[in-house]
């Protein structure tokens, strides 16, 4: 005898879940946007990102009290709390500012998540080797060169940039232990933190004329490339 069990969700909970995974973009304002509307920026906060942040907060809160070395703030701020995260993030943001297609928001966030996951897997082999800092520094140098050269960023390139950024950050992620829950927390925290940082950088308002802003961005990109190259050389020296 076959018994089918149907879970009856309360209507308000069902409505909330369906909205969280809908195509609607949460702009944070009372007016909701559709993806085909001109959002004016690549990265937007969706409900799914907010739910991820809620996951990080809740799992951190309800874990057994232990002396945490890596707290909630560190998990979310990992991408912006060290040179190995900041340099690729800054140079990627300089590149992504040139791509303002709002329809890329979700694929870009997904590419970032995939890159983070691959990077986290690679971390197992990279930990303790000089290659671990070399991966983000090389990616930052490549991004810096592209930004300083003023290259255009087509849609596919934007997704690749997001994936590579995720890879570079994932390869240097810290987690309390190698247990699944800690890894998931680190991954989710870094994803939310990176998206937030990217969003701020990509949607920063134009300061001054567009031409001078472009010049300033290329100068910052060249400086970032120089810093990444010098750090790469120092890493190479430590290998010798």
């Amino acid at each position: 005898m076959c018994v089918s069990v149907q879970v009856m969700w309360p209507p308000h909970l069902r409505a909330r879940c369906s909205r969280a995974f809908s195509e609607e973009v949460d702009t944070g304002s009372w007016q909701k946007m559709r993806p085909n509307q001109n959002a004016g920026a690549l990265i937007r906060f969706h409900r799914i990102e907010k739910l991820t942040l809620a996951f990080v907060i809740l799992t951190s809160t309800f874990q057994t009290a232990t002396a945490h070395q890596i707290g909630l703030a560190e998990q979310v701020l990992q991408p912006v709390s060290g040179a190995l995260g900041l340099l690729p993030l800054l140079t990627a943001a300089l590149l992504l500012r040139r791509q303002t297609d709002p329809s890329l928001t979700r694929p870009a966030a997904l590419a970032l998540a995939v890159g983070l996951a691959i990077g986290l897997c690679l971390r197992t082999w990279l930990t303790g080797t000089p290659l671990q800092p070399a991966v983000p520094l090389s990616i930052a140098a490549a991004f810096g060169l592209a930004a300083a050269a003023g290259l255009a960023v087509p849609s596919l390139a934007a997704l690749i940039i997001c994936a590579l950024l995720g890879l570079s950050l994932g390869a240097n992620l810290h987690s309390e232990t190698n247990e699944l829950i800690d890894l998931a927390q680190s991954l989710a925290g870094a994803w939310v933190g990176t998206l937030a940082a990217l969003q701020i950088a990509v949607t920063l308002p134009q300061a001054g004329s567009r031409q001078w802003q472009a010049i300033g961005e290329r100068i910052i990109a060249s400086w970032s490339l120089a810093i990444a190259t010098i750090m790469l050389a120092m890493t190479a020296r430590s290998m010798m």
Partner: protein
Amino acid sequence: MPTRTPAFFSAVLISALLISSSAFAHTDGVAQSGFWSGLSHPISGWDHVAAMVAVGLWGAFLGQPAIWLLPVVFPMVMALGSAFGVIGIPIGGIEIGIALSAVVLGTAILLQLRAPFWLAAIIVGIFAIFHGYAHGAELPEAANPLAFAVGFVVATGLLHLAGIGLGTFIRWPAGRVGVRATGGAIALIGVAYLTGAI
């Protein structure tokens, strides 16, 4: 109803997390020594200072786009030279190259040479290798790599900006004379260093 933008949401999130970070025993001393060490490196010798200011001055004479593209090219190629120096790849005639950079760039300013942009970029790029190599080879072992690199690149960039700032005086006749005289002085400094190097 006030509108809350996503950027505002993100800024509040990051600010809150930054404020709530754990207390650490601060180790700023190490970072600062690395930063100041890097910052003071490019201004530790008159030959370096003269050449880097000359890049900005020459860019100002050449006009758009050289005025800002030369200071973009210089740090990138200089970092490559630094990498050679740090790793220890042998390059000969570094001191001569640095002195020559001041002579050539100073003379270009003095004579108001209007080279094509690509040629100016190549000249500046070649000299940047020598400057970067000298700094890279002298890089202290114990320096905080990030702080040192940031200080080093920022100091170089500020010297270029100083040159560009001085170069804006060329719009006035007296300023043009002054800038050309500065170019002559830079060339003389280069000659003095070149004599010592040879």
